[in-house]
């Protein structure tokens, strides 16, 4: 049985599944990382994902146009990001409460729209797996890395893109400055509100895409509470990843692979109680978080609204 655990099929299966499952977490975690680097905590990720998932599904179901579905999900996500930014930046409302409000809104509204417009569970044909000539045919590596759909590749491409944005561009410098020392940034002429609106809207767009990656790429269905709490895991993964894109990647992959592994353990009949197997990804994430927490520092102005001339 142990030999079976380390067989090639199992290994390929676990890694491939880990990559696939990591996709929605990557979009959502990187979206949330952007916002948090500028000092905004958004606990509404799951709600934004649900609205994105519903919007993408509904548009694709009605028009059959996947690109349009993805676009609408992005716009819906961006709008909810805008709402979040309006409350946290302009009205300086308590961010935790606002985020929970956005979550509840997304959960309730996506349910309501689902009932009124679809009524029952339907399916669409989502983004197909892309067969890349030569690359997809490489043994072992082919199925692991080159058997996925467009949104999976997009999620992984987002890691270097967001790293570059945050660390190598003027905009990235502004985002980090606003998140660490908004007063100083403001005195140098950086619009704190402008930067925060930007990160929250772009973050919302990515969270909308995270939802779409579920409803029109990985699962191709919509159901009430489709994300079942993924958005909250994504928020945890931001801390896990130490507010860095690469950290987000590591966290999303670790969590997803352990999740894939526990499914395999059950299938090949390793005699551990299923309840324990199901706990594994969560326990492991918390353990790693406990060990890494001291190393990294949160953005200094995280969750603190900025008011010019205050303090």
């Amino acid at each position, binding site marked *: 049985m142990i030999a079976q655990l380390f067989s090639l099929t199992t290994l390929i299966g676990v890694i491939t599944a880990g990559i696939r*499952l990591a996709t929605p977490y990557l979009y959502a975690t990187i979206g949330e990382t952007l916002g948090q680097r500028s000092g905004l905590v958004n606990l509404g990720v799951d709600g934004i994902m649900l609205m994105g998932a519903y919007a993408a599904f509904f548009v694709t179901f009605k028009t059959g146009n996947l690109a349009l579905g993805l676009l609408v999900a992005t716009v819906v996500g961006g709008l909810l990001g805008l709402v979040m930014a309006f409350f946290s930046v302009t009205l300086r409302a308590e961010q935790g409460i606002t985020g929970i409000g956005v979550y509840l809104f997304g959960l309730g509204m996506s349910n309501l729209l689902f009932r009124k417009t679809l009524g029952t569970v339907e399916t669409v044909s989502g983004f197909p797996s892309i067969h890349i000539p030569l690359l997809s045919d490489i043994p072992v590596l082919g199925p692991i890395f080159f058997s996925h759909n467009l949104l999976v590749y997009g999620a992984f491409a987002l890691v270097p893109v967001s790293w570059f944005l945050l660390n190598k561009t003027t905009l990235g410098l502004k985002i980090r400055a606003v998140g660490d020392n908004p007063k100083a940034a403001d005195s140098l002429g950086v619009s704190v509100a402008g930067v925060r609106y930007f990160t929250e809207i772009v973050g919302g767009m990515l969270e909308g895409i995270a939802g779409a990656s579920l409803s029109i790429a990985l699962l191709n269905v919509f159901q009430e509470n489709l994300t079942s709490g993924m958005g909250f895991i994504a928020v945890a993964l931001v801390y896990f990843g130490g507010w860095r894109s690469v950290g987000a990647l590591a966290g999303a992959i670790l969590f997803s692979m352990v999740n894939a592994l526990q499914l395999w353990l059950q299938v090949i009949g390793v005699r551990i109680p299923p309840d324990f197997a199901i706990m594994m990804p969560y326990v492991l994430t918390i353990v790693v978080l406990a060990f890494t927490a001291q190393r990294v520092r949160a953005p200094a102005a995280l969750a603190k609204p900025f008011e010019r001339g205050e303090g």
Partner: protein
Amino acid sequence: MNTKRGILFLMVLATLFLLVGCPSAPSPTPVPATPTPPPKPFRVAVVMPSAINDLAFSQSMYDALAATRNKLGKDKFEFAYSDGMFVVDDAAAAIRDYATQGYDLVIAHGSQYGSSLVEIAPDFPNTSFAWGTTVDTFTDKGINNVFAYEARSEQGGYVLGVIAANLSKSGVIGVIGPIETGDAKLYVDGFKAGVLATNPNAQVNVNWTGSFSDVALASEAAQTHINAGADTLSGTAQMVVGAIGVAKEKGVLWFGTQSDQASLAPDIVVACQVYDWTVVLDEMINLIKGGTLGGKAFAITLANKGLTIKYNPGYTVPDDVKSLADETIQGIVDGSISVQVE
């Protein structure tokens, strides 16, 4: 920090929810008031954990209530429901609300609602309650107004297992379950027993996801089964829509339970065990009208037609397999086959 604005925002949202009638709010769905006609209709209220259109557990009860209303007529039978009540406290509040409003029968459609009913039922001795799926009517606690109902889902599971074993070419069959309890466990055990009784060399792999609603994990569980060589899948709970999607994409067979799922994947759904609670509802209504408010446990079975095997018209099952399935049903009904569950 401006906590006040945040709270205000939440309150505005809450108001909005109430206005649009958010499905997850614990407010009961109102029944149109009737201008006191002489024969009072029989009024039933039900509280359910998931949505009435989940193609699974909650839908099975909703469909039964709708069928009963069609049969008896709107002037003789009314029902109201609260669905999406996965939070037990909210469900308890809704159950109490319905009891207060004088419904003749209040159904707590979810095994997680049992402890709430123990609290509520004694406060309304003239209201009848029903709790499923379970066999416990709380008579040992001195409560006499609670009926219990369950689905002997292992029976249909066994029949589907027999069909699956005959159709599987690889001899590897995957089953996706939510949490190892209640009718999900019965179904999985029955299905497994049916497969192994038909083909003792078959391999049945079972995967529990730990959730009734995690569609993504159910989809990944299906993928895992297929990678492990399965060419036939089954599963239970509302999350299986994710698994059916994978089965459809990979072209492996699917066997469903609780509700008819053929609409999701007309090419690969072979058959489903469909729950029909109307037999149980009929019996409870008759007892209540005769003055008995509880203390009796019911079950839907293949014998009382509360469980039926519904073939997908889009998928052709060979005649010899179909007649074998019919014999199996007959065997379970007359007792010559007894389905052993672990």
